[in-house]
């Protein structure tokens, strides 16, 4: 994961192209021949390559620094921390929570997806939209809602409950998409070959849902492992909470760094597994063309039960948090309604999120274009480097930036730019994915045509690629803006002294048990995040 390999293949291609001696063909034999051979014509132009390499370096910085820091006192010490009984205990608790949440999410997600997509459920459209709404609820808001209603929930149960209810859409959405994508002709073929509806579902439909469900489950696991808000409010010790505590408790930051490394290794393993299932899911889909919509399955006497199931899920995942919030807003006295403070915090949140989204989008642009347009090892490495944030829990990114700033850039320590940088590292994957998808939408042949009509590569970028990708890039920026606004652990560690965002304020008030004081911040956060989300929804449709 060191940055140097990202630059190498491009450099190889360049020297080979300018070296006229016949030996040049022999030299790159050790280096990837496929990249050098095809890269000669498909090598990204320097206009893209230089900024993309900078972005990749930037994204890898925390990871590299974390490793350096964790090993600073020698591998023996790091191992001592890692092999400590307490660490193993944390490992068990983190994995236990993850397993419980993943299992619950799969049951909830697959059942709701099937009911809303394939059955004659009354109001199926309403349920399918309502069931995705929890995605907009940050885990700490869900934790706030449950904790404020029943403080006794604190602990494993409360953490599992609130995490399940915010993350089951990660399973629901891909499974629903897979269900929609299955050509009903396959099921009809199975029926015509003598299979009953149940056997058809088990033998034809379900196996095709497995990649989607597995991908969703891995996303949930990633979410749970890196979650800080819900577990800290529920006072259930996992890696993230222990890192935070250890960082706050002592000046010796090596233990926190060592714990972070373990957490990063776990998430990296999950990300790798997730990427593998995603690859296979892609292969599983055969044949193009749009399939006919399937004939909905009649529910018959199961209809009330199905409605009850959907109703209950939406009630506890959406209606309950909103209801609790409404309750606390209503009972809040004028003393808890600090309008001045709320406005100030809201503005601060918007400002820092906007800066984060701007920097992230800017860094993502060259990487996204290269990822969409250039194959080969160099381009892949660049993209993967930019995705590092995907595997890094917010708390570890924050920690590594703190270390880095204290050592090398003290003026930045506890200043806004450092927080904005953390957002960029964390959410670069979001913006890169959006940019890449947007660029992919425009067929590359358009760029070829533009070249044949006399445009140079940078002119093609300006006149064709960027204008065509602009809507998608803007959507990515809006999405980044929303996730920056909701970010909690990195903000807690890196915010300038005296500055609060809606998320940190909500966290502090809830942690102190002043639920009525926390409610306005939760409400403001949801409302402010809803606007770009709504616009995004309109953009997609």
């Amino acid at each position, binding site marked *: 994961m060191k940055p140097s390999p990202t630059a190498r293949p491009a450099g190889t291609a360049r020297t080979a192209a300018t070296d006229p001696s016949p030996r040049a063909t022999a030299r790159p034999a050790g280096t990837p021949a496929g990249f050098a051979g095809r890269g*000669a*014509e498909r090598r990204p132009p320097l206009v893209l390559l230089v900024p993309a390499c900078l972005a990749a370096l930037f994204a890898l910085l925390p990871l590299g620094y974390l490793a350096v820091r964790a090993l600073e006192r020698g591998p023996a010490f790091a191992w001592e921390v890692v092999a400590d009984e307490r660490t193993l205990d944390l490992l068990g608790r983190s994995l236990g929570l993850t397993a419980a949440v993943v299992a619950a999410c799969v049951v909830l997600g697959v059942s709701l997806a099937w009911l809303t997509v394939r059955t004659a459920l009354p109001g199926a459209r309403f349920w399918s939209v309502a069931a995705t709404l929890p995605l907009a609820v940050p885990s700490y808001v869900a934790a706030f809602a449950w904790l404020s209603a029943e403080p006794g929930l604190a602990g494993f149960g409360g953490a599992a409950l609130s995490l399940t209810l915010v993350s089951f859409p990660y399973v629901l959405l891909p499974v629903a998409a897979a269900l929609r994508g299955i050509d009903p002709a396959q099921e009809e073929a199975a029926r015509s070959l003598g299979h009953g509806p149940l056997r058809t579902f088990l033998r034809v439909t379900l196996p095709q849902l497995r990649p989607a469900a597995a991908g969703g489950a891995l996303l949930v696991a990633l979410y749970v492992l890196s979650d800080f808000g819900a577990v800290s409010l529920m006072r259930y010790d996992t890696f993230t909470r222990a890192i935070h505590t250890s960082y706050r408790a002592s000046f010796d930051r090596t233990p926190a760094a060592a714990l972070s490394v373990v957490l990063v290794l776990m998430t990296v393993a999950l990300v790798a597994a997730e990427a593998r299932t995603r690859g296979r899911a892609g292969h599983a889909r055969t044949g193009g063309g749009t399939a006919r919509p399937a004939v909905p399955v009649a529910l018959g006497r199961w209809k009330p039960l199905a409605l009850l199931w959907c109703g209950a899920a939406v009630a506890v995942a959406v209606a309950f948090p909103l209801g609790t919030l409404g309750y606390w807003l209503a009972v809040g006295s004028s003393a808890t309604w600090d309008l001045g403070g709320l406005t100030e915090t809201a503005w601060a949140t918007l400002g820092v999120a906007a800066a984060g989204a701007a920097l992230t989008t800017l860094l993502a642009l060259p990487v996204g274009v290269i990822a969409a347009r250039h194959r080969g090892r160099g381009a892949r490495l660049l993209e993967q480097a930019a995705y590092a944030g995907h595997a890094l829990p917010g708390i570890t990114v924050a920690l590594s930036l703190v270390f880095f700033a204290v050592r090398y850039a003290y003026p930045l320590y506890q200043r806004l730019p450092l927080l904005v940088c953390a957002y960029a590292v964390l959410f670069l994957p979001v913006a890169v994915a959006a940019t890449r998808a947007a660029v992919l939408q425009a067929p590359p042949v358009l760029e070829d*045509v533009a*070249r*044949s009509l006399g445009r140079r590569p940078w002119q093609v970028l300006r006149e064709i690629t960027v204008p065509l990708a602009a809507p998608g890039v803007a959507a990515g920026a809006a999405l980044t803006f929303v996730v920056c606004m909701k970010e909690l652990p990195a903000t807690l560690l890196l915010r300038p002294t005296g500055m609060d965002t809606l998320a940190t304020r909500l966290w502090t008030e809830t942690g102190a048990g002043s639920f009525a004081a926390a409610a306005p911040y939760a409400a403001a956060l949801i409302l402010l995040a809803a606007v770009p989300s709504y616009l995004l929804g309109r953009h997609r449709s």
Partner: protein
Amino acid sequence: MNESHASEPGTDVPDTHGSTKDEQHTIEQEPSQRREGGSEANGPHANPAQSDDPHDNALHVEGLTKSYTAGHDPVLRALRLTVPAGALAAVLGPSGGGKTTLLRIVAGFLRADAGTVRLGGRILAGPGVHVPPERRRIGIVPQEGALFPHLTVARNVAFGLTGLTRGERRRRTGELLELVGLAGYGDRMPHELSGGQQQRVALARALAPRPQLVLLDEPFNALDSALRAGVRADVRAALRATGATALLVTHDQQEALSTADLVAVVRDGRVAQCATPQDLYRRPADPWVAGFVGDAVLLPATVGADGTARTPLGAVPLAAAPDGPATGTVLLRPEQLRLTAPAAGGVVRGTVTDVCFYGHDAMVTVAVEGHDTPVGVRVAGPLPVGPGDATGVRVTGEATLHPAG
């Protein structure tokens, strides 16, 4: 590194044509290029359009070799192709045969491992030379048009018109839209046009900067068959009107035969045969080409001293008789066979096994005595027979012999 590879003399393997070496000399001596073009006109693929054109827009491709994974299974193997100025040549071949690779190398989007590409007097690609696509003066018409979706039709057409005043640009755009029959469509957006109209705009866009060569990559594929013939004719007319040399890639032999002045059949990265459509159909270079460009009746034959071939369908005169006795395969086309009464004299008897009715004609499959494979007979007009009927088969016209071995 590709260039250096190409400069090694050993890698420039001459094709079946032995002239590769001589032509290499011509490339190095630029001034003699004109004469070279002249001698080309005397060749078998001469096209009268060439003399009409004041500029030499002929395309010469020599020894073009390309493999995607180094050292493995080349997609192009020392491919050689010449398209005379102003001609519309079709590159016909099965998918995966390297047609699109050839097109992309000529356009400059890919670099060949070896070989040269010359357009008129300019070397576009060759040892140590790679002209970038934007300086090649080659227009491309991709599959499905690929119009810029964010620009109006007029701005699409004007995209390649740089260095002109606004008035000139508008005039040229109008001219081109008129040429493709879409005058007045300039303000539309691409998605407001039908597939055929989009394809015509793509052609206008490619022709606007007056390219020396236009490359068309299966441009009619996306159109439904009813539209295809019309768009094809319009494209041909527009190309004629501008005098640009054109290279059309297709896997549809009907399209190649009906549209092009010259058809190059590409197989396994080589040109298996390059000829006018008529020659290609009547005198294919080998049985594979024969079957690829149309329905073929292939019969084993022995040729006696009299120069006629003895086949399971009787004695058949040959278009070009071999010097002496020979054996081999003769090629007949189904329309050269006639159904007769089973008892008629001098005919071979057979049984109809299948009838495929196409409307304008029908294909009758007949199992003949003395030949394992049933033969196809194209019958125009009313059908005299049905499956199971006995019939006679008679051969008209001449056959082509492909000697064995």
